[in-house]
C-alpha cells in the first residue's frame, strides 16, 4: 500500500509553516550605541585645559556636572524664588534651570494670571479681598509617603502674607493658594508630616490673632504666634481648610520647623528667636530688634505633639476665629500639646535626622549646633514636673533634652543629612559648609569619630539654606549638597549693582574631608531660600495632557472643550457672546470674532494637539490676556468688551513654521 504522507516529509512541511509564523516574532535588534569616551584626555580637550588653566579638580568638576544634550539629570531640585514669588525647577548635577513655576506672582510665559483659570487661583490668595501681585516664597516642601518624597505635590509658603500654595507635579502647575486665616506673615513652612497628613506653616513675626490693631505696649498680652496645620486631601490635590486648625503660641517669633519621623513621628519641632519679647523702636531709644531679640542666651525650641493637637481639634477643643479652628495656648498647655526646651539664641534651622532620633538646631550667634534626643524629650515629658515660662508652657531643662553639642564655626543655620552618617550645616558668617558626624545609630557609617567637625568647605558667599539629595527624607541619597548662597560678589561678570544669587553644587560622595565644590548656578530672577532635591525618577509628570479638552484646574475633562475643528463656533445669546475656539498648528478656528462694544465674552480655547511640546499661546492685544495652551489643554477667559476697535489675537509660543500666520482678528464694533 502506498502512503502519501511519510512522517519525515510532513515534519518538514510543518517546520516550514512554523518558520513563517516565527518571522512574526522576530524583532529588530537595537543598534549598538556610540562607544564611551576613551580613557585619557583627547588632545583637543587637553588644549582647552591648558588654554584656560584648568586644574585637575576643575576638570573633574566639569566632567561630573556635564550633561550631554538629551541626557537627563538624576536629581531635580525645587527651589523657592523668594521675592519673585515663584518656584524654580533645576536639574542636578548639571544645574540647568528647567522651569519656573508661577505661584504667588502672575507669570506671563506660562499664562499664569492673565485671563485663564489661574486668575482664580491667584484670587483665592487675596488678603481680605485686596489683590496681591507678588509673594515671598521661602521653603518648598515635597509631599511624602512614609517619610520619603513621593513626587506628587510640592507646597510653598508666602512669608510676606501668610499664604500657602499647592503645586501639582503632574503638570507642575499651581492649583491652589490659601490665605492663612488670622496670620499676616509666616516663615516656618512649608513642611509635611511623614504621610503628608498635614502641611504645616509656622509663624514668624507675632501679631494679634486676626492681625487686628493692638498697641505694641500690649505686646505680651495681645500679640501671638500661630502655627497652622493644613489638612491635605491627596485625592483632590487641595488643602481642606475645614479640616485644618491652628495653635496659638506665645509671641516668640517662631522660625523654622520640621516634622519628626520614625521614633519622633507625631512630633513637630520649631525654634523661636524672640523669647525676649522685644518690640523694637530703635528710633525711640529702645534696642533695635537685632539686639533686643538676642539679649537672652537661649530661646525656646517648641515641641508639639501633633497627634494630641489633632485629637483636641477633633474633640471640639478648638475655638473658631475668623472661620478657622484655633487651639488656644491654654488648651495646648492643658492637653500636653506644647513643650519648650532651651536652645542657643536666635537659631535658624531645626532639622530632624533621617531616622528621626535627633533634632539639630543651629544657633546663628552660637558656634555650636545643639542636638536634642527625642528619646530624652519623650522621657522628660513622661516624667513631667517642669518649670513654666511666663505663658505657662512647661520648659524641659536643657540637660534633660540635649544629646550633644558640636562646635562648627560662626553662624550655623540649617542642617541637612546624607546616607553616610554626616550632617551638613550652613555657616553663614564663615561662608562655609560644615560637614560633621552624627553619633548614636549613625556612628560607624563612616570612618570618622561621632559628633565631630570633619571639614569646612568655603562657599561664595554668605550661605543661607543648604539642600541635600533626598536630604529631608528617611533615606537621604548623599552624592550632592547645594549651598544656597545669598551673595555672589565677584563670582560672575558684573551685571550692575543687583547681583544674582549663587547656588553652588558640592560633591559629597567621598567620606572624610573630601567634599568638593563643583559648580555655580547664578540665579538672576529670584532669591531662593530653601530647596529640596528629589530623585528624578520619582516624578511622573504628563508629557501632554491626558485627553484633548483637559482642564488643568479640575484635572478632568472640561465641559466646554472641543475635540476638533468642526466643533469650533461662536454663539450669541443677547449680550453674551460665547466662543469655542480650536487651537492647532498653525491656525485658530475661528479666525474672526466680531462682536459689539459692551458684549460679555466667554471664550473657551482648546489646544487639540497631541504632540509633545506643541504648545500654543493666545494673546489678545489690548485686553491683558495671554494664555499658554499646552497640548490637550482647555482654558476659558471671560471679559466685558468695553473697548471698541480692531484687535488682534495671535499665538505667543513659536509653534511651527507658520507660527506668525497663526493669528486672528477680534473686531469690537462701537
Amino acid at each position, binding site marked *: *500500500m502506498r*502512503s*502519501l*504522507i511519510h*512522517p519525515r516529509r*510532513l*515534519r518538514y*512541511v510543518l517546520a*516550514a*509553516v512554523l518558520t*513563517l*509564523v516565527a*518571522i*512574526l516574532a522576530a524583532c529588530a535588534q537595537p543598534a549598538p550605541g556610540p562607544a564611551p569616551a576613551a580613557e585619557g584626555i583627547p588632545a583637543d580637550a587637553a588644549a582647552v585645559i591648558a588654554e584656560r588653566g584648568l586644574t585637575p579638580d576643575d576638570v573633574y568638576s566639569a566632567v561630573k556636572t556635564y550633561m550631554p544634550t*538629551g541626557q537627563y539629570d538624576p536629581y531635580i531640585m525645587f527651589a523657592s524664588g523668594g521675592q519673585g514669588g515663584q518656584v524654580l525647577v533645576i536639574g542636578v548635577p548639571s544645574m540647568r534651570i528647567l522651569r519656573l513655576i508661577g505661584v504667588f506672582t502672575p507669570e506671563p510665559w506660562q499664562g499664569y494670571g492673565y485671563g485663564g483659570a489661574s486668575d482664580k487661583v491667584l484670587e483665592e490668595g487675596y488678603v481680605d479681598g485686596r489683590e496681591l501681585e507678588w509673594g515671598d516664597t521661602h521653603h518648598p516642601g515635597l509631599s511624602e509617603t512614609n517619610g520619603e518624597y513621593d513626587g506628587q505635590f510640592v507646597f510653598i509658603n508666602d512669608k510676606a502674607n501668610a499664604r500657602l500654595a499647592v503645586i501639582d507635579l503632574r503638570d507642575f502647575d499651581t492649583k491652589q493658594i490659601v490665605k492663612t486665616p488670622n496670620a499676616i506673615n509666616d516663615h516656618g513652612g512649608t513642611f509635611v508630616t511623614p504621610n503628608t497628613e498635614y502641611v504645616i506653616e509656622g509663624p514668624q513675626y507675632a501679631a494679634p490673632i486676626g492681625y487686628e490693631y493692638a498697641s505694641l505696649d500690649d505686646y505680651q498680652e495681645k500679640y501671638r504666634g500661630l502655627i497652622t496645620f493644613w489638612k491635605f486631601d491627596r485625592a483632590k490635590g487641595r488643602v481642606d481648610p475645614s479640616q485644618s486648625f491652628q495653635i496659638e503660641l506665645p509671641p516668640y517669633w517662631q522660625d523654622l520647623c520640621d516634622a519628626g519621623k520614625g521614633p519622633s513621628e507625631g512630633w513637630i519641632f520649631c525654634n523661636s528667636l524672640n523669647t525676649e519679647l522685644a518690640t523694637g523702636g530703635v528710633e525711640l531709644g529702645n534696642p533695635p530688634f537685632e539686639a533686643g531679640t538676642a539679649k537672652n542666651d537661649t530661646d525656646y525650641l517648641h515641641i508639639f505633639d501633633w497627634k494630641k493637637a489633632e485629637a483636641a481639634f477633633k474633640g471640639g477643643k478648638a475655638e473658631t476665629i475668623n472661620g478657622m479652628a484655633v487651639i488656644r495656648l491654654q488648651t495646648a498647655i492643658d492637653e500636653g500639646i506644647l513643650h519648650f526646651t532651651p536652645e542657643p539664641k536666635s537659631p535658624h534651622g531645626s532639622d530632624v535626622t533621617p531616622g528621626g532620633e535627633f533634632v539639630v538646631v543651629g544657633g546663628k550667634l552660637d558656634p555650636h549646633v545643639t542636638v536634642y534626643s527625642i528619646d530624652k524629650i519623650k522621657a522628660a515629658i513622661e516624667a513631667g514636673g517642669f518649670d513654666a515660662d511666663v505663658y505657662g508652657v512647661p520648659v524641659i531643662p536643657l540637660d534633660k533634652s540635649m544629646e550633644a553639642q558640636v562646635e562648627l564655626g560662626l553662624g550655623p543655620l540649617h542642617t541637612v543629612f546624607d546616607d553616610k552618617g554626616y550632617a551638613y550645616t550652613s555657616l553663614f558668617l564663615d561662608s562655609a559648609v560644615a560637614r560633621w558626624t552624627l553619633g548614636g545609630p549613625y556612628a560607624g557609617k563612616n570612618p570618622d569619630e561621632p559628633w565631630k567637625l570633619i571639614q569646612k568647605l568655603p562657599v561664595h558667599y554668605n550661605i543661607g539654606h543648604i539642600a541635600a539629595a533626598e536630604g529631608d527624607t528617611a533615606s537621604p541619597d548623599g552624592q550632592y549638597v547645594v549651598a544656597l548662597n545669598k551673595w555672589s560678589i565677584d563670582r560672575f561678570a558684573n551685571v550692575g549693582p543687583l547681583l544674582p544669587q549663587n547656588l553652588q553644587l558640592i560633591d559629597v560622595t567621598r567620606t572624610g574631608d573630601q567634599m568638593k565644590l563643583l559648580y555655580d548656578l547664578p540665579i538672576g530672577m529670584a532669591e531662593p531660600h530653601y530647596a529640596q532635591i528629589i530623585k528624578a525618577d520619582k516624578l511622573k509628570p504628563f508629557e501632554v495632557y491626558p485627553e484633548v479638552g483637559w482642564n488643568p484646574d479640575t484635572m478632568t475633562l472640561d465641559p466646554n472643550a472641543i475635540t476638533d475643528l468642526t466643533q469650533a463656533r461662536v454663539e450669541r445669546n443677547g449680550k453674551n457672546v460665547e466662543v469655542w475656539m480650536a487651537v*492647532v*498648528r*498653525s491656525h485658530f478656528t475661528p479666525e474672526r470674532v466680531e462682536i459689539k462694544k459692551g458684549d460679555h465674552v466667554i471664550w473657551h480655547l482648546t489646544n487639540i*494637539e*497631541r*504632540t509633545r511640546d506643541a504648545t500654543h499661546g493666545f494673546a489678545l492685544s489690548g485686553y491683558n490676556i495671554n494664555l499658554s495652551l499646552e497640548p490637550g489643554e482647555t482654558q476659558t477667559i471671560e471679559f466685558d468688551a468695553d473697548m471698541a476697535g480692531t484687535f488682534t489675537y495671535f499665538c505667543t509660543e513659536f509653534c511651527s513654521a*507658520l507660527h506668525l*500666520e497663526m493669528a486672528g482678528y477680534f473686531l469690537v464694533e462701537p
Partner: protein
Amino acid sequence: MKSIYAVDSDVKVLLPDGSARRLMDYLVPSALLMFAALLLMASTFMPYWSMTLSAPQYPEGLRVDVYINHLEGDVREIDALNHYLGMPKLDEGGRLERSISAVAILALGLLLMAGVFVHNQWAAVLAIPALAFPVVFLADLWIILYTYGHSIDPESPLGSAIEPFTPPLFGPGSIGQFGTVASPGPGLILAFAATGVVLIGLWFHRAAYKPIVDARNKVKASTPQAARA
C-alpha cells in the same frame, strides 16, 4: 514524534475499489486548511502595513499601523501635519474596505473550512479568495496611496510647493523634512503564510481525495450498465 503522525494508524480508509489508505492522509489536508483559516483570522489582530516617519523635531518618530479594520498610531498628528500639504485625512482612504474587512476575512476563513468538506477539485475554487487576499490587499493599498498622494489641495499652505506623488508601498521615501519607511506588518505576513499553508493543504487534499474520485470512476467503469439501472 512519530506517534503524532501515526494517529489511529490501525484505522484504514477503504476506497470504493477496495484499496485502503491511512486515516492520516485525510486528516492532514483538513488540519492544514483549518490552520490557514485560523492564521487569516489571527491576522486581523495585527497590523498589515506600517509607515514610520522621522524628522528632527520628532526624535521618537511618528508611526501609523494599518490593520485590516482600523488605523493605529500617530494618526492625529500625521493628519495635523498633512493639513499643511492639503492631503486628505488618513482614514479617508479605504473606508469601505475597513468597514467590511472583518466580515470578509470571516467569510474567507469559512470558505477554507468548507473546503474540508468538499472532496473534489471544487475545494481549490473555494480557496481562491483566501489565496488572492494578500495580493488584493496590496493592490488596494497601492491605489489608496496613489489617491492620497494625488489629492493635494492647491489651496493648502504648502499645497503649491508639492508635486503629486505616490508613497512607496515598501521601503524608504521622503516628503518635506520627513523620511518615511513603509514595511509589511505581521498581519500581512500571516496572510501570506496562510496562502502557503492553503497551497500545501490543497496539495495534500488533492493527494487524498483524487484517489477516491479515481476509484469511483474505476468502479463505475467496471460495473455492467444493467446492474446500475
